[in-house]
């Protein structure tokens, strides 16, 4: 307990500095509302249900896009490592799209699917697919050739080897790719909602900021940041549990 306190003390100090600087008038409350006021705004927004409905909209979009990218990207990456023709066709495309800033797709998906959920889900799916595919590909490619041979010589079919040997050995890298994708999904989600949306946390930030409700805007920004952080921590826990079978 004291260990955690010592570790996170700098954050507490910063929070106190924030409160003090605004209370003492060193910083204008118009530019930076006091932390206590931001927390009260967050509480009010949560009670009125605004925060919850917008957060639910955001999480639905991020979750759906991410789930699609994990299923399709993971399958694609393993297929690339398993059948060379797939690699030859898909590999150059992945390499081509890898450095492309995915946020550039925001206007395109909005053009295709409008301002609703569909355009964000498509954007997150397309953006997150590349790290997942690469993770799965690198993991599956590095699976131990000796394991594959022994499984084959013990009479396992090719499909059986794929499922029992290649997929588990691809898992650590695949899960790492998913972690990158998880962070990316939040970035894409918030960018897209800031730019083209009528609901969601990113929209809320822009809407409250444009209306001059700065304590509310800060509350929404902190909520997004907190959600992104918590999602990463939970994912790390899960990843460690899933990979417990490794020594």
């Amino acid at each position, binding site marked *: 307990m004291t260990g955690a306190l010592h570790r996170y003390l700098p954050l507490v100090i910063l929070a106190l500095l924030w409160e003090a600087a605004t209370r003492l008038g060193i910083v204008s409350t118009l530019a930076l509302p006091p932390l206590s006021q931001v927390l009260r705004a967050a509480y009010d927004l949560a009670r009125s249900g605004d925060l919850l409905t917008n957060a639910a909209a955001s999480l639905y979009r991020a979750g759906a896009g991410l789930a699609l990218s994990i299923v399709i990207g993971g399958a694609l990456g393993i297929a690339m490592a398993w059948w060379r023709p797939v690699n030859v066709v898909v590999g150059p495309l992945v390499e*081509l799209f890898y*450095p492309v800033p995915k946020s550039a797709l925001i206007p395109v998906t909005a053009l295709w699917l409008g301002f609703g959920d569909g355009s964000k889900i498509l954007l997150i799916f397309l953006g997150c697919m590349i790290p997942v595919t690469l993770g799965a590909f690198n993991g599956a490619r590095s699976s131990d050739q000796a394991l594959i041979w022994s499984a084959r010589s013990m009479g396992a079919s090719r499909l059986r080897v794929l499922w029992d040997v290649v997929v588990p050995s691809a898992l650590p890298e695949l899960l790492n790719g998913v972690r990158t994708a998880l962070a990316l999904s939040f970035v894409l989600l918030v960018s897209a909602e800031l730019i083209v949306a009528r609901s969601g946390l990113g929209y809320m930030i822009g809407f409250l900021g444009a209306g001059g409700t700065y304590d509310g805007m800060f509350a929404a920004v902190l909520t997004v940041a907190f959600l992104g952080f918590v999602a990463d921590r939970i994912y790390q826990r899960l990843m460690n549990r899933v990979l417990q079978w490794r020594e």
Partner: protein
Amino acid sequence: MTRRRVAMPGLVGSMAWWMARWIAIAVLLVAWEGLARSGLVTPFMLPSLSVVLARIWSDALSGDLLQNLWLTLYRALAGFAIAAGAGTALGVLIARNRFIRWFFDPLISVGFPMPKIAFLPIIALWLGYNDASKMTMVVFDSIFPVVTAAIAGTLAVEKELLWSARNMGASERQLLWEIVLPAALPQVLTGLQVALPIALIVSIVAEMTMGGAGLGSAMMVASRFADSPGVFAGITEIAVAGYCLVKCMALLRRRLLLWHQEALAPATA
């Protein structure tokens, strides 16, 4: 003779695989043109490749392309340079000073996984809708991978190297510039390679939300006026710019690390 007979199919084979890579890209481009012309999708949903290329050409002739490209790259690269310098310095400090590490450790571990782009409206509120706020956002977002890479790189410097340098009478300053930084360079460069695309992304998103010209802003304007060739021209330009930046960074890495053993390893594509 036998060796030659074995080698030839191998050479032809690898040539074929190499050709296939370009064929895949060519097929994609042809499929784009074909799909756009087939009438299955409206020109609004997907303008044909030739229309988009014509649009890029006319933008280039009028000078808009160059100006927007310059603005975007200027914001991204200036922010990236600040993040690279400050991030490396901070990372080395964190790794070498216990108090600084105690203070920044929780900030980094909390800040790294956060979607920092959400702070964009706050930065805009503080600094206004200008280049300074866009660059601040770029620095804020791209500094994290640099710092963590610099910390890891500095901590991984072999103790024996430091001991022997000290033993031979190296000053702290010499130790830093001649031992620690070169030894940490490979990891720092990896961090920079992660940070560069982030810098470009953030500068484009900042332009999309705040306006003020640049490739992102031009794309948003095109999108608002339902000018879909403009949108697709924008995405093509951004894709090419991003691709070139990443390739340049990889080249720079190879150039800077000529002395390092990784230069001997076969280059990965």
